[in-house]
């Protein structure tokens, strides 16, 4: 797409103003391009981490279900359900925000969770198999929280990258070329004006000399 010349007043002040704008636009475009590259780097890193955490979560879920099946076989379904209903676990998640190159993303931090306490007093109704199963479930919960943070961050980064890409493209392909063309047009216009002025003055000088010659 060819850049359009946009001139409001073809004056030297306007040319100076456009040159200042061009300098600022070029500077900002460089910063925006840097920001875009950094955001893309962060996005790709988050994608890798997300994939790794999802894989870990799947394997943890598999282990947790395996352990739960073993516990269910060992205790029986009804006592197991009773034990699970009465078990308590305190888990503290601190949430906050972190800022990455201007993008505000959530931050979840899991405090050290207390071990699962069972309110059932009868030790015959609990076993190490059940404890192992609950420990694996706790790990799954921690991984889910970690994944939630990463997926949310991914979405926010993606949106910001789209926005910044549009701004960068607008500056690089529309604003700056438009300013370049307008500055060139005005510069050529002033040069032409100067040349016309020089030839006009030469003609006037010639006329004055002729007049003086006739007067003599």
């Amino acid at each position, binding site marked *: 797409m060819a850049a359009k010349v946009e001139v409001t007043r073809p004056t030297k002040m306007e040319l100076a103003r456009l040159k200042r704008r061009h300098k600022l636009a070029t*500077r900002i475009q*460089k910063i925006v391009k*840097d920001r875009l590259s950094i955001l893309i780097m962060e996005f790709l890193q988050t994608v890798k*981490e997300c994939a790794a955490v999802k894989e870990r979560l799947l394997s943890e879920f598999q282990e947790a279900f395996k352990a739960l099946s073993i516990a269910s076989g060992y205790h029986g379904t009804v006592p197991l359900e009773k034990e699970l209903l009465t078990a308590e676990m305190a888990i503290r998640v601190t949430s906050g*925000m972190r*800022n990455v*190159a*201007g993008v505000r993303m959530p931050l979840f*931090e899991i405090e050290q969770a207390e071990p699962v306490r069972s309110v059932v007093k009868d030790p015959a109704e609990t076993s190490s198999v059940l404890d192992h199963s609950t420990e694996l479930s706790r790990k799954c919960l921690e991984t889910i929280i970690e994944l939630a943070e990463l997926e949310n961050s991914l979405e926010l980064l993606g949106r910001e990258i789209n926005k910044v890409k549009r701004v960068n493209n607008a500056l690089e392909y529309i604003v700056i070329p438009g300013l370049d063309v307008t500055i060139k047009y005005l510069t050529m216009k002033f040069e032409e004006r100067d040349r016309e002025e020089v030839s006009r003055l030469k003609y006037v000088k010639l006329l004055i000399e002729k007049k003086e010659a006739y007067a003599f």
Partner: protein
Amino acid sequence: MPSKTLPDRVIEGYLFDDVKVLNTQIPRERKTLEKLLGEDNPHVVCMDGTPHHFRKRELEVLSQITTDDERHTLLLPILMEVTSDRADIIIRTRSGTEAKIFSAVLDMPVTCKDNKITIFRPQLSVVRKKLKTTTQYVFFT
């Protein structure tokens, strides 16, 4: 009695004109590692008024790398200057503690020259993976 902290010249160097406008993510005031370790909810306030929280685990990692004195002087977040004309990243430091941290994180020697540490863009991803909340970008021209 807490000792008087030196002014943060690094932040002051980024608070002018369009650099300030285009970098609203940099904090208004940085805090020392010692102070952040003592807080229940460690965070700083950015130029746009939003909070930036630190992960306690990262602060603990940094406290393991640094000595007691270094914890009093190390200001967080560590600002990494990204310039379009350069392929490297500059970290301005006043005490050189950041060089020790980056050496530990990158597992290679990193030197401090004229209060400046230089790392390269491929190393940036390694640093950001380990220090997500304790490092921050600054875009400069």
